[in-house]
């Protein structure tokens, strides 16, 4: 079936585009060190962890549920992988088992929510505690290190840079893209292709809009919901793999608070908590916007407590901007047209 191309409208663009645009321009103007190749590659590397988490979160939000356990899953799978590496298990097996743990935990979330019909917020909050406590018990509340050995050389390799373009001598003039960013890019592309080019999107939206009607229309709602939760768990496990490779060790508390950041990135990207609509492109831009603010403020040397206030303000501003642009779209388009055409249509609006 050939899809019809939608007419261009401002509200068809992902919402977080404006936020990212405003934040990016403001940061580049205010902080001179912000717009350098070195900082940008750092920004992308930092945001890739959040990106994977918020991808899973967006999918769950689209079905009208929420997954607060992603932070806990990140800690737990990370600890599992790091402990395996410590026990001299070959890296590839450690990674496979870690990812499997994430999938299983996500499936358990899905089973609780669909089969026992529990509300997702409180259930995933409880499983977050469970995952976090497994992480603490396994690691005995200590950072897990491992010795570099031939069996885990894969971890070292993945930590290296994939592309390195030098614009100058100093570190800030070097654009680097590491394997981690490459992995993230591949995963994101696969998820987006699966989502946009198969029937997954319409199924997920149908479930989010009205689960009962989706079920009556012949969609296996429970199967897809469990699948989405499993995918969220898998993406969280991948995010923990990135943390593990980047820091070459793992703290059992790594994931604390990340679930909220993931929700914020997803919501800035135009996903609603009610489900039934949303966009993955928006999520990417939302995560980038969030990390641009952080990066710019930390480069400017601003205190972390002020950073909290600014992030809260940006969040309100971004949501307000989304709402306003949708509300005044007609007028803005009319204004732009009148400016471009050189005629004044303003009085008609």
């Amino acid at each position, binding site marked *: 079936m050939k899809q019809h191309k939608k007419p261009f409208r401002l509200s068809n663009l992902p919402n977080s585009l404006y936020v990212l645009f405003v934040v990016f321009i403001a940061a580049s103007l205010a902080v001179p060190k912000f717009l350098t190749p070195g900082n940008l590659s750092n920004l992308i590397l930092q945001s890739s962890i959040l990106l994977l988490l918020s991808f899973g979160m967006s999918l769950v939000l689209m079905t009208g549920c929420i997954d607060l356990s992603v932070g806990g899953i990140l800690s737990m799978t990370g600890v599992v992988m790091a402990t395996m590496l410590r026990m001299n298990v070959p890296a590839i097996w450690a990674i496979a088992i870690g990812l499997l743990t994430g999938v299983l935990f996500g499936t358990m979330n899905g089973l*609780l929510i669909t089969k026992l019909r529990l*509300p997702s917020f*409180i259930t995933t*909050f409880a*499983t977050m*505690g469970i995952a976090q406590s497994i992480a603490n018990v396994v690691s005995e509340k200590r950072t897990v290190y491992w010795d570099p050995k031939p069996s885990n050389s894969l971890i070292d390799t993945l930590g290296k840079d994939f592309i390195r373009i030098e614009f100058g001598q100093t570190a800030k003039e070097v654009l680097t893209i590491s394997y981690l960013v490459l992995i993230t890019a591949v995963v994101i592309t696969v998820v987006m292709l699966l989502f946009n080019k198969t029937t997954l999107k319409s199924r997920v939206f149908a479930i989010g809009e009205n689960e009962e009607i989706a079920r009556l229309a012949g969609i296996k709602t429970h199967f897809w919901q469990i699948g989405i939760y499993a995918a969220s768990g898998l993406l969280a496990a991948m995010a923990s793999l990135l943390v593990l490779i980047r820091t070459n060790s793992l703290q059992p508390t790594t994931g604390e608070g990340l679930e909220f950041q993931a929700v914020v990135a997803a919501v800035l990207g135009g996903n609603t908590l009610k489900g039934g609509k949303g966009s993955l492109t928006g999520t990417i831009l939302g995560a980038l916007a969030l990390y641009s603010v952080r990066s710019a403020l930390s480069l400017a040397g601003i205190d972390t*407590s002020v950073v*909290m206030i600014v992030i809260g303000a940006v*969040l309100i501003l971004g949501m307000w901007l989304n709402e306003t642009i949708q509300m005044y779209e007609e007028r803005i388009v009319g204004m732009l047209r009148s400016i471009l055409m050189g005629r004044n249509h303003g009085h008609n609006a």
Partner: protein
Amino acid sequence: MDTMPRLHRILDIHTLKRGLYSSSIFIMLFLVFGVFTIYNRVAFDTNYLKAANISVIVNQASFLMVVGVAQAIALLTGDVNLSIGSVMAVTTVLFGRMLQQSSDIPLFIPIMLILFLGACIGFLNGILITKLKIPAFIASFATMYICRGFAWVFLGKTVIYRLDEGFRTISMGKVYTIGEFTITVPMLIALALILVVNFMLTRSTFGRKIYFVGSNVVAAQASGIPTDRVRITNQVISSFLAAFAGLLYVARLNACEPGMAIKTHFEAITVALLGGFVMTGGYGNVWGVVGGAIIMTAIQNGMNSIQLPSELQTLVMGLIIILTVFMNTFLLEKKMLVADKNIETKKAIISRGAQI
């Protein structure tokens, strides 16, 4: 002719069943207390159920009840309030500084100012939710960050301690001792609060409006209820109670610090949801919060009493939360079923009576 006695009998059984099904939290409470009592008796030969211990549990639960009620009111219109903990932090930090600056002004002036500030933050939340149409989750998350940030900026890394002793009675005061059970001031405060809120929710027009807005905003709007105003007022009450809870916590800790109550929003949501409130709004009874708060503290207290390592405590807590919420949903469905049957039998009896 003999329809009336039958009607009564059926109604009685059904009312009983409904009563049973809506008291899941108390069944859970019974289970929790039972398990810990038996475990304590068998393993350590101590009495978990002694009056002194119960008194400690209820006293601690009173603090949770206040935040739980604050969250429950917000949840009733479906607007979750994540900023409770931060509101507590920012208001009490200012309160501590006011006490420090001048000791000769009467205590009720800073208290009034602090409660007013809490109400103002709630008003801001309400405006963000209704007028700017930001989802409550995000709006209150943003205010949570902003308030916490202000608290850190204002006090830095210092802690204000040793507060006015007279002020501390609202958290530490003891009223009366029956046997080993001590009735404390926080218990009375929590009880009064629950009674007032219960009266407001069940007996006043405003309370019924809250439930209506929570179950269906569009329908409420269409029947002429100023939904925005109801939701804003609701947020104001919620944050006001948060500021009040902040005062209670400060009086208990005898210190103000910007990092206080960092997980309280989660605790409050857990207490409210355990008490039978739902995230979508429009359902719930304030007395459930009492049960939820007592369960939470009883579990904490019990796990400490059997010396469970702290990393396992979150695990047990998670499992118990899942179990309780499962019982809530399961029994609620049963209750609805009974209600349906009840109406059907009533209809059947009435129609048969009409035929006769």
